[in-house]
C-alpha cells in the first residue's frame, strides 16, 4: 500500500530507482539488490574517515528508492573514485558507480555542480582539454614553458566547431 520514511516523509521513487539499476546492470553488470550490508565498502572507504561518506548506506538508500535524499546531498560529491568499494565487495556491488549515477542525476536535474567541475567542463568544450597549457616554475624558481623544454606542440581537436557540436549533443543524453 505505502511505505514512508518518517524522517524525510519521502516515499520510494521506484521509477528513478529502476532507471539507475538498469544503467548499473548495463554498464557494470552490477545488481545493487544483492547487497547484504556487510559494510566492507565503508570500512575501507578512502573518503569515509575524512568526509563521512558511507557507501553501504548509499546502496541501502538506493534499495529503498530514496533517491532524492541522496541527489540533493553534498556527501555524494565526496567520493574520490578510488574504486576500492567495487574491488572488495563480496556481492559485486559497486557503490562508486551508484554514486556516479547519482551525481549525473544531480547535474541533469539542474542542481548546481560543485567546485571546479564547471570550469573543467567549459575548458573541454572550448579547447578539448581540462586546462590549457601552463608555464611552470622550477625548483629554483625559473619559469619554463612547454616549448622551453623542447616538447612538441600539444594535441587538441583539429576541428573545434565539430567537436563542440558533438559535445553539445551529448549534454542532454542520459546513459
Amino acid at each position, binding site marked *: 500500500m505505502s511505505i514512508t520514511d518518517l524522517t524525510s516523509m519521502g516515499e520510494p521513487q521506484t521509477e528513478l530507482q529502476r532507471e539507475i539499476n538498469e544503467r548499473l546492470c548495463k554498464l557494470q553488470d552490477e545488481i545493487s539488490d*544483492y547487497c*547484504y*550490508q*556487510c*559494510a*566492507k*565498502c*565503508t*570500512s*575501507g*572507504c578512502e573518503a*569515509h*574517515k575524512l568526509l563521512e561518506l*558511507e557507501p*553501504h548506506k548509499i546502496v541501502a538508500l538506493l534499495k529503498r528508492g530514496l533517491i532524492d535524499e541522496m541527489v540533493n546531498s553534498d556527501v555524494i560529491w565526496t567520493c574520490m573514485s578510488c574504486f*576500492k568499494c567495487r574491488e*572488495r565487495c*563480496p*556481492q*559485486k556491488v559497486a557503490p562508486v558507480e551508484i554514486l556516479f549515477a547519482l551525481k549525473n542525476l544531480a547535474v541533469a536535474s539542474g542542481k548546481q555542480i560543485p567546485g571546479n567541475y564547471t570550469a573543467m567542463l567549459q575548458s573541454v568544450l572550448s579547447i578539448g582539454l581540462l586546462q590549457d597549457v601552463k608555464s611552470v616554475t622550477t625548483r629554483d624558481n625559473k619559469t619554463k614553458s612547454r616549448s622551453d623544454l623542447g616538447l612538441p606542440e600539444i594535441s587538441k581537436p583539429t576541428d573545434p566547431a565539430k567537436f563542440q557540436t558533438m559535445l553539445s549533443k551529448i549534454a542532454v543524453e542520459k546513459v
Partner: protein
Amino acid sequence: MSNKIGVFVCHCGINIASSVDVKKLTEYAKTIDGVVVSKDYKYMCSDVGANIIKDSIKKHKLDGVVVACCSPRMHEHTFRGVVEAGGVNAFNLEIANIREQCSWAHDNKERSTKKAKALVRGAVAKAKLLEPLETSKINVTPEALVIGGGISGIQAALDLAEEGHKVYLVERNPSIGGRMAQLDKTFPTLDCSSCILTPKMMEVANHPNVELLTYSEVVGVEGSIGNYTVKIKKKARYVDMDKCTGCGDCIAACRLKDRIPSEFDEGMGKRSAIYMPFPQAIPLKCTVDAENCLMLTRGKCGTEPLCVEACEASAIDFKQKDEEIEVNVGAIVVATGYDLLDPASLYEYGYAQSDDVITSLQMERLISSSGPTVGEILRPSNGEKPKSITYILCVGSRDETQCTWCCRIGCMSALKHVYLLKEKLGDDVEINVCYTDIRSFGKGYEEFYRKIRGMKTNFFRGRPSEVRNVGDHLTIDIFDTTTNKLFEINTDLVVLVPALVPRVDAADFARLLRISQSPDGFLLEAHPKLRPIDTFTGGIFITGCCQGPKDIQDSVAQASGAAARAANILSKKELEAEPLISCVDEDLCSGCSTCISVCAYNAIELVKEDDKSHAKVNEALCMGCGACVASCPSGAMQQRGYKDKQLSPMIEESL
C-alpha cells in the same frame, strides 16, 4: 512384437485433465491401429487404476500396454509391476508422458490434446515393436568400502560393521580421526573433542568386521552397484606395523626433529621426519615422511639414521614399498571431508604479511592442550601473550568472488573460541568479533550465542576491508552498522574464519568414482531434499562435509544414513539389473572401438571371434546411458527397449 495393445489414460486429478481432453484422447486411442482397448481413470497409479489395467489385460488378452500419464521417472517402475502382475512382460510397457511434456507445458486445451494424441500414437507404434526382456540378477558382494576415516567415515563403518558386513575403512593419513581430532572442544556442549572421538576410533579399529587401511588411498574403481572392484594403494610407512610399539623414541631421535611444519598442527608446530600425527593416533604407529626424510630423499642420513639406532623394536624398514591391493565390495560410502580456503586469496586480510594473522583451525591448535603451545595462547610472531584477539568471520564465504556459500560452522566455532579464550585468558584479553550475520541455527546453538553475548565480548557487525600490519601489531578499521560508527581496532592476533571448500583433489576423485560434483565443487547428492546421501551412481553414497559444509552432529547423522542406504544393498543376495542396456549386432559390428572410447563405465570390450573383432557388452557393468549407441557409426550397437527400429516408427507416427 505385440498385436494387442491396451491404452490407459490417466487424468492425474486435474494435472492432466485440466489441460488435455482425456475423454477425447481415450476415444481417439481406440482408433489407432493395434489398439484393442482404451480406458481412462482419475489416478491410474492407484490400486483401482492398477486393477483396470490388470483386468483389461486378462479380458482382452493384451500383449502390450501403453499408459498415458506422468513422467516415466515417476511411475514407470510402478506400472511395470502392474503389467507383470497382469501377466504381460514388464518391458512390453511404454509410457506416453502427457503431463510433464504436455499438460504442464501448455495451456491451450485444443493444441494440448492434439499433442497428447500424437504422443500416444507414437507410444503405440513403439509398443507394437517392444520385445519382452528378462531382468538379469546381479550377485551382491556383502562387503562395504568406506573412504575417509574422519568422524563421518568412522560412524558409517561402525554402523555397517554392526549390521554384520565386512567394512574396509580407507584413510589417506597415517591415523584416523580426521578434523575432529584437531579440535579442542566441540560446540555447543563444549565436550572435549578427543574424549568423545577416541572411543569411536578405538571401537572401529577393534571391530572384528572392520579392516582398517590407514595411510592408504583408493586409486581405481571398477564395476557397478553390488560389485565394485577397488584398487587401494597402501603407502609405505617404512615402519613395520607389527613390530612398532608406538613408543616414540625414533621421533625424539630424528635428525630433523622439530624442523618440519606439522600438518596436524596446521603449520603452527613442527615435527620430525618420522612422526605420529597426534598422541591418540590410531593405529598408534610411526610413519616416515618420504618427502622430507633424509634417508629417503638423499640416500643417507649422517652415518646412520638416528631413528633406526633409537628403535628398540627394529621396526624401521627403509626398503618398504607401496603395495597395491584389490578388494571387492557391494557398496561404497564416501566420507572424505573438507579443506579450508587459503585466506591468502583475500590478500587484504594480511594472512601472507603477518605471522599474527591465523586461521580458526590454527587457533584451534593453539587452544588445544595437545597442540604446539600446550594450550597456551601465544602470538606466533614473538611468543608473547596477546592482549587483544580479533576474529573476522566470513573470510571468503558468501562471497561472489571466492566461495558463494555459507560455511555453516564459522559463527558457532568462533563463538566457541571466544568462550575457550575467555576461560583461558580471563578479562585480561580483549576479544573482538567482526561478523556479518551470526548463524546459530542448531539445537542449543542460540542458547550458546546468548551465553557468549553475556561474556564481555566486543561484537562488531560489519566486515573489515583490510588488516594492516603496522610492525608490532595489527590495525583494523571496521564500520559497525549497529552504531553507525567507524572503529579502529588495534589488536595483537587476528583470527580469520575462512570458507570451507572441497578437498583439493575432489575433481579427480569424483572422476575416479564416476560421481558428480555440484557447482561449488562438493560431491553431488542425487536430490538435495529427498536423497541427500545417494549419488547418481548406484551403490555409492556420500556423507559428511564432502557433500557440503556441516557440523559434527549432521556428519554423524548422515553417516548412519549412508550406512543404512548401503546396508539396503548389502543385505540382499542379489539385485535386479535393468535390462535396458546396450547390445551388439555382431554381424554389423566392424570392431572400430568408437563405443569403447566413449563408455564411461568400461563396460565394453573388443573380442576376437573367427578372425573378426567385434564389441562385446559386459551386462553387469553397462548402465544403459546410451553413449555407445549414439556413437556407433554402423548402427550395430543398440539399446534394448530403445532400438532404432523401435524409435523410428515412434517418431514417424508422432508426427
